[in-house]
């Protein structure tokens, strides 16, 4: 993994979002730089769901935020419908963000605790939507209804009167009120119970069909990502490891890191034998000073000399299945 390259990109006019060589770096005290995202490229077709999966600290949330230029990436290109977003003025970007919306991990803290639900959901319309109050109210009611919240009951209530799952529904309603094209979901179900998680995942599938959405779904839970995604990209320490159709990737992972992730995933089936070997604490290397060559080599059982000297490039191992690895498991 830990590789670069663009072999997996499709032709530009087929795609709604196209990201090339995206780099996001932060300066931290002491004159050091955190290399959160180091040159990743991917694209998304209209109506597709792309899953971004990886451990915490791999840069998946940073990537999601960089798409809507919050903050602007250090370098690289992000194109939405062939328009380069990195070059837009803040005003032009502000206008474009109505098409690119985001929902977050913690549904309770992403809603203002002092405001009523109707005001929270109507807020984006105060700036962009119809100015007519009756029309606004109608739109709020419609959207609340389609996320499974009864508008009659919910309208005047405060966020603390709702459960985590309901708060996530309300923040989904807020993100959809301006009828966006792309919804970036940053770990939207990680803070929820399994039963709420299933409800929200089903809801996102339904809304995707109803509103013709394109989803970017960021999560660390592999089973969740597989369930919702058409295509999955595995990230490690700011780089892409493997990109493939969801079913293909889970059936035949070829990157050692994807394999490690899948093997670690607890399956609700007691007849599966678990590899119970106890290993040393192997931590994610620091993104301030990432390993040379392939970034995964320090944890990879197949690493050889070439892995430290040369960064692997994306290559097609099977139709529409790309991997950046010197020793893919094929």
């Amino acid at each position, binding site marked *: 993994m830990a590789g670069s390259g663009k072999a997996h990109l499709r032709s530009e006019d087929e795609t709604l979002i196209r990201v090339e060589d995206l780099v996001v770096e932060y300066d931290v005290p002491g004159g050091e730089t955190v290399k959160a995202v180091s040159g990743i490229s991917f694209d998304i077709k209209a109506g597709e769901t792309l899953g971004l999966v990886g*451990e*915490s600290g791999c840069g998946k949330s940073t990537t999601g935020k960089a798409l809507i230029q919050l903050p602007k990436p250090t370098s690289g290109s992000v194109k939405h419908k062939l328009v380069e977003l990195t070059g837009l003025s803040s005003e032009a970007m502000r206008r474009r963000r109505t098409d690119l919306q985001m929902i977050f991990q913690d549904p309770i803290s992403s809603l203002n605790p002092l405001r009523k639900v109707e005001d929270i959901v109507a807020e984006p319309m105060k700036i962009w939507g119809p100015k007519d109050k009756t029309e606004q109210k109608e739109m709020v009611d419609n959207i609340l209804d389609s996320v499974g919240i009864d508008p009659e009951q919910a309208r005047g209530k405060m966020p603390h009167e709702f*459960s985590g*799952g309901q708060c996530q529904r309300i923040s989904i309603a807020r993100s959809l009120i301006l009828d966006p094209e792309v919804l970036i979901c940053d770990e939207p179900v990680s803070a929820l*119970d*399994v*039963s709420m*998680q*299933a*409800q929200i*995942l*089903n809801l996102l*599938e339904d809304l995707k069909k109803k509103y013709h959405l394109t989803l970017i779904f960021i999560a*660390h*839970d*592999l*089973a*969740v990502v*597989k*369930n*919702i*995604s*058409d295509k999955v990209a595995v990230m490690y320490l700011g780089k892409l490891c493997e990109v493939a159709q*969801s*079913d293909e990737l*889970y059936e035949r992972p070829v990157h050692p890191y994807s394999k*490690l*992730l*899948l*093997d*670690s*995933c*607890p*399956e*609700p*089936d*007691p*007849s*599966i*034998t*678990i590899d*119970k*070997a*106890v*290993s*040393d*604490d192997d*931590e*994610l290397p620091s993104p301030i000073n990432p390993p040379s060559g392939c970034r995964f080599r320090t944890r990879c059982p197949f690493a050889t000399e070439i892995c430290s000297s040369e960064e692997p490039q994306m290559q097609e191992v099977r139709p529409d299945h790309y991997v950046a690895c010197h020793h893919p498991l094929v």
Partner: protein
Amino acid sequence: MNTTVVSDAVVADANTSASPLLVVEDLHTSFSIPRGEVKAVRGVSFELEQGKTLGVVGESGSGKTVLARSIMRLNLGNNVTTTGSAKFRGLSILDQPPKSMRQLWGNEMAMVFQDPMTALNPLVKIGRQVTEHVRHHLGISKKEARSLAIDLLNEVRIPEPESRLDSYPHELSGGMRQRICIAIALACEPTLLFADEPTTALDVTVQHQILNLLNREQETRDMAMVLVTHDLGVVAGRTDETMVMYAGNVVEKTSTHELFNNMQHPYTEALFRSIPKTSERSHTRLTAIAGRPPDLIDPPTGCSFSPRCPYVQPKCREEKPPLIPVNDGSHLSSCWFPVGTEENKAAFRKNVAEGLPQTLVVEEALTDNSNEGSES
């Protein structure tokens, strides 16, 4: 490490090898709050033998953490009431004064908590946190304690243990902090370990390692372990027995293998169906559990799962089903219409015909997925 068990006097001669290590009977815990009495645990009974593992599974609010804390006597505050009995090696824990509990904590029974970030004191170096209670229980010198701490950190596979002893918690990763918490819990060689969602805050790869570590320690020390989790995947390969809790009650309890192969309670089935699995194709429709867990101040009469159950019948709303053995005797379940029976199928058909929302949700997902299956 050798242990001189200071608490032998407390545990007294009740330690007969025939009786299980832990026997809990009809345990109730409630919290009084201004709005009323929150009945968090409502009559839980179970036994745990030395060296065995018990998984406790349920949604948040099902009472699994309160249960563990009640047995550990960690529910503090004047508004808590615990009744029933919990016997550890024959000793009635609920009647012990706090002073005797101090002899048991760490020494005989220990706990690993969910959030390794907050379980450690941010102002105290790792070395002191690992050995504080060891020095209290075993009365050893600082120097001996330090070498014991190095052994422990080695055992939980923390690289360079010596230098880590002088680190503060914020200098370590989440996985490493949880390893430290495990080292603390194991330091005095307890015979009973409660692990309360020990991996929920961690990444999958780290979760895998931490569970492996807990499993190995539990086996080599012949320690009994209660693994509390909301994730059926976590209990699947790692526990001998599993207890499913809902609204403060045990709804099903049996060997883990039997539970997954022969689910009896509709809640267990619903919980299992609602989780996405990597073995299923992408876009498989999940069977979400309709509604929310009940208000524990005023739980429903009858079966507490009845408002969300796809098989609910009038009897379920009126009469609470007892936790009784099914077929082989060790498999307990509390349901009037157990999954797989003819009565259950009839109840489902009846509810579909009546258009009961929670039944239609299940019906819809089942048809949806079987259609997709035939297409592909």
